[in-house]
């Protein structure tokens, strides 16, 4: 290429890049303003008391200062956020944002103070994870992560949680879940927990149809709706009916 063209291209790129970057930042900010600010404040300062918002709902939400890319990544990728009503329980939903939009939003939220980055879990020990999960998690999430109930909230099953989301959730403690810092659960232990949760998605079911891994509840259903029904049918096959 001729030197002049090279110079012009370089200059153009130099001028455009910040603009592109600014456009991206601007895009994140724009998305944030449109989807999050009514509850979390334009600068992530939070909205303490219910404040009428543009979407017809009274906005109210915790501050996002210092939550970092980690929290934003978790809440956005699971669809927990945006939350239509601050009084609803956040739950896994279809994610409306595109990948690019999520990145932009995460960057935007991360910019509200120095917060933790997105974690990267590594392979761990399933057996160590079984012990840790039973200790710290099974009370709410059930022995094989099928979820359940705690007074005032539903506890989600972890079948759809990615390794990254599991790691994020343990550190964040989203909604009513307790949080566990590296002091409470070391990085190695976190890897083990992730390994165990992954295991629970396809556990050893050598006994046959696992009927949901929920224990006596579906077992009772099978007893009555399959076995008892079949045997009553057999009885009607073998014995006579009463004709009125």
């Amino acid at each position, binding site marked *: 290429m001729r030197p002049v063209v090279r110079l012009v291209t370089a200059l153009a790129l130099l001028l455009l890049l910040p603009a592109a970057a600014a456009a991206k930042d601007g895009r994140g900010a724009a998305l944030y303003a449109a989807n999050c600010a009514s509850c979390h404040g334009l600068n992530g300062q939070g909205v303490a008391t219910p404040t009428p918002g543009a979407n017809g709902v009274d906005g109210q939400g915790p501050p996002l200062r210092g939550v970092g890319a980690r929290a934003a990544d978790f809440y956005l990728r699971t669809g927990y956020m945006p939350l239509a009503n601050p009084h609803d329980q956040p739950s896994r939903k279809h994610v409306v944002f595109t990948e690019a939009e999520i990145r932009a939003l995460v960057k935007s939220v991360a910019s509200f103070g120095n917060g933790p980055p997105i974690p990267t879990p590594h392979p761990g020990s*399933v*057996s*160590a994870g*079984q*012990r840790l999960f*039973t*200790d710290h998690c*099974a*009370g*709410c*999430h*059930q*022995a*094989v992560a*099928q*979820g*359940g*109930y*705690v*007074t*005032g909230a*539903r*506890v989600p099953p972890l079948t759809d949680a990615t390794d990254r989301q599991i790691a994020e959730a343990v550190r964040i403690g989203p909604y009513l879940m307790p949080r566990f810092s590296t002091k409470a659960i070391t990085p190695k232990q976190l890897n083990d927990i992730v390994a*165990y949760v992954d*295991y629970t998605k396809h*556990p*050893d*079911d*050598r*006994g*046959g*149809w*696992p*009927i949901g*891994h*929920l*224990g*006596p*509840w579906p*077992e*009772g259903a*099978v*007893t*009555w709706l*399959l*076995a*008892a029904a*079949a*045997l*009553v049918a*057999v*009885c*009607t*096959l*073998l*014995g*006579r*009916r*009463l*004709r009125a």
Partner: protein
Amino acid sequence: MIRRIVRFLDQRSGTAPLLRKTLRYVFPDHWSFLLGEVALYCFVLLVLTGVYLTFFFDDSVARMTYHGSYAPLDGATMTHAYASVLHISFDVKAGLLIRQTHHWAANVFVAAIVLHLLRIFFTGAFRKPRDLTYLLGLGMLMLALLEGYAGYSLADDLLSGMGLAIGYSVAMSIPFVGANLANLIWDGPFPGSSSFWPRLFIVHVLVLPVLIGGLLAAHLVLVASRHHTQFKRSARESERRVVGIPAFPGQAPRSIGLMLWVFAVLFLLGGLVQINPVWLWGPYHVGDATNGAQPDWYLGWLIGALRLVPGFDLTIGHYTLVPNPFWGGVLFPALVFGVLLVWPWLERRVAGDDAFHNLLERPRDNPWRTAIGVAIVTWVFLIFVSGSADRVDVLFGLDYATQIWVYRVAVWVVPLVALFVTKRVCDELVAGERRD
């Protein structure tokens, strides 16, 4: 050939006349009369598969570190009892099949008894001279509940261990003597001494099976000696004459067929549908718990009751007269069984009827009994369903606390409504028939 066998037997036991009579014993024919047999065959399979399991189970609560075939529990601390169940499930060929068949058989056993009991109650089969037979049957039901609870608790997994703690608390809640009784059974405070597991084991494999077997034998002897009740289908059936199929050749292939069908269903379930995967729950530790813990279905009525009773211990000063679990865990089942036990006498007193009854009534033919029975069943069933309110919250989003309040009212109101509706339906049906 047949002659030779029969001659051999009769010469040595003198049973030919009895056998001759037995071969032509009359079985009235209705499909609902086979429900008791379903329970019987479940019991047979329970004993057979149970004996096999005792050849592998270790009833010791000594602790060990697991390094067996199931990798996710490698390094875990557990009792020898739990490890032996893992061993049966993973290392013994056909062990898991037999274990699961055994557990399915227990669940179906109690279901069959309940269906059989409902049939007996709603057709009036418990009336004199079969009230003693009925009592024996109720005894077997109570023992079967205990036996199943003891059986699935033996595995010492997290789920059943939590259930044992609850059982302990229910025992403790008995006024005045609860703690003494619990101390006796567990040999000290929960989780008890090293004697408790051998105790539980012997109760499950010897004491209760022998008791159930004994009651069963007496029950069957009485059924045979009094002959089976029957519906009045034609002019031939009466209080004096029983009409039906002879044991041989007619009834035999039906009964044998039923036994084979029961075995088929139970083995198919035992191989194809996983039940109580204890390796997934992990071993029991006093400080551990899992969400969604439930007892086996036949104790679901008790967990419902325990959850519905509001939070209070009945105290007078420092005396804790009635700890909370008593209402749901002791009084409720005692009431239900109490009513069932005295029912034959109650009905006799109220109806002023002391006669023998060999003919059955259709439910509609005794509207008050049917209505009250439906009310009791509704009451128990609603309490049973309330035990799943947390699952309903998770599945359908209905707030748990609200559900509990609704149930607290509904379990009293709905049975009353059911009582009156049923009485009305019965009356209408009978009136309709009379018109035709």
